[in-house]
């Protein structure tokens, strides 16, 4: 059984059809990376998986841990183990980051300061969530929240965009820790879907599969390094055909690495 199984998913937002017939799945312990041009529907897909308001599933199903979650409210999906690092995390005035973290954690079996130090976020705990945070600080704040939330499926929406090289390495270390990348594959329990444009994060975190979304369709999935090389060489528009040829019929997550 896959950890996440999406079938025939059509999604609209703001009255527009954004995702068209998405089939996608991911196994326990795996990492899938998603490429796709701006506006192709990557963030919308993550929003649909988590059930964010304003994103409407018009047909199809999302099954997580064997349960159909298509109609579950967002907080229940979060409690089932889905966690999103937002591409554009909003600021929440008046609520301290530490207050939120206190509310997120499900037990006291960890030392928050180990995490916050690891992410260089110690001085931000007493500040209002994301308020006045720089781009990179917001991204680190997202990862810190996920570390405390400990989801089984991490949805990482461009975790490294706008982040300097040193901090990409810091973020990646934290993510590798959550994803148990130090353990052998069969022992890893957490999975991740990572959206990236540059692929920088792949220098630190090994992905098992890459999928390409263009215009609301998944064109195909395959080896992350090969697909990234294709995109770098030819761009998305010229490459539409090649993904189809390369990986027709494969919808991600199944490949052995």
């Amino acid at each position, binding site marked *: 059984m896959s950890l996440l199984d999406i079938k025939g998913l059509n999604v609209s937002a703001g009255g527009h059809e954004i995702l068209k017939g998405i089939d996608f799945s991911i196994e326990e312990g795996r990492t899938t990376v998603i490429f796709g041009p701006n506006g192709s529907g990557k963030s919308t897909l993550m929003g649909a998986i*988590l059930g964010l308001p304003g994103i409407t599933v018009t047909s199809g199903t999302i099954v997580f841990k064997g349960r159909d979650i298509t109609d579950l409210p967002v907080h229940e999906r*979060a409690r089932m183990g889905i966690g999103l690092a937002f591409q554009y995390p*909003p600021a929440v005035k008046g*609520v301290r980051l530490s207050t939120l973290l206190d*509310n997120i954690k499900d037990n006291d079996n960890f030392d928050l300061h180990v995490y916050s130090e690891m992410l260089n976020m110690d001085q931000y705990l007493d500040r209002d969530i994301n308020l006045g945070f720089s781009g990179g600080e917001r991204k680190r704040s997202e990862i810190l929240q996920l570390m405390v939330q400990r989801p089984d499926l991490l949805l990482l929406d461009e975790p490294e965009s706008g982040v300097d090289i040193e901090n990409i390495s810091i973020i990646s270390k934290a993510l590798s820790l959550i994803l148990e990348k130090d353990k052998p594959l069969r022992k890893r329990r957490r999975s991740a879907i990572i959206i990236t444009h540059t692929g920088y994060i792949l220098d630190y975190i090994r992905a098992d599969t890459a999928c390409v979304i263009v215009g609301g369709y998944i064109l195909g999935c395959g080896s992350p390094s090969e697909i990234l090389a294709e995109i770098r060489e030819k761009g998305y528009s010229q490459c539409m055909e090649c993904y189809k040829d390369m990986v027709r019929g494969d919808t991600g997550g199944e490949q052995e690495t």
Partner: protein
Amino acid sequence: MENKRLDEIISNENSRLEDIGYGGLPSCGNFLVMDASVLESMYAVDGLEVIPIFDAIEKYPRVREKLYFNLVDKNKSEYTRLASEAKPVGYYIRVEPGIKIDEPVQAAFMLGSTGSTQVIHNIIDLGQGSTLNILNGCTTSCQVFQGRHIGITEVYIAEGASLSYTMLHNWGENIEVYPVTGIRVDKDARFVSNYAAMTSVKKLVAYPTAWVEAGGSARFHSIIYSKNNSFFDMGARAVLEGEDSGAEIISRVVSEAGIVISRQMIEGKRPGCKGHMECSGLLLDENAVIHTIPELKGSHPDINLSHEAAVGRISSKELSYLMSRGLTEEEARSLIIRGFLDIGIEGIPPRIHDIIEDTIKKSVKGSV
């Protein structure tokens, strides 16, 4: 003052008094009034005096001639007239020059019988360079369903003195409240007012005014949580009369229902005057109305007055962001509302801050 009656009342009304912080912390003086009876009036620090105003008028010509109905005009309204005709009930608090006291004076005013009108007159008189904290609470006894409270307050803060004045209101759905307050802030003196009203009230109309001399400052911070059919017409005014005087007015209103009018005014008359106000309202429901009226008046070019105002709903983006971390909608709302009301009041003792926090927690649904 009969001790037996006092004990009885304090134990009967314990939870009501606790809600407004009375008796909850170490204090340097206490003053408790039920209807028109002073039940407790004591002080325990040299240089401090807390006595019934009636006694003070007898004892001190200065109070009689210079302080009583000086900052508040007897003929201002039917309420001031009523107060001027009645035998005055309330406190006179005096601090001698140079005396600085950390522990607060605690005062509570309780409406004890249904259908009655309580008329209170308080005078605060801080000598040069002195410092004092006062925690006031107003509430009704548990069995009072309807009534009226009129409160005249005159505050005199002499040169270089500093007063932190906290007022917690905990009335009821059928209580009308008419406070009238005047504050004189002398040269280089400081006045900080913290006001919190977290429960329903039938009607509350208040517009305290501070006149601020050179180098002095007045700050009004208020938080209001409106429910049911509450009607608040609540404001603050600072008149900057001296050079380099300053004012800050911050008001936060959360409304589930009812009408809240929030008026603020800062008037700058002399060079170097500085004033800022911020009034924000959070509407939780379609039945709620928040009307903010920020006013600035400058009559000298060399001043700096500004305001920010915003009224709106809880941002759905923020709400779903918190919910995406596993918080229920109610928990997420509660966090946001409590954050909105937390204005980070400086200069008040932490324990008073805790009492305000508690009050907020109790009134916001879903608090954890």
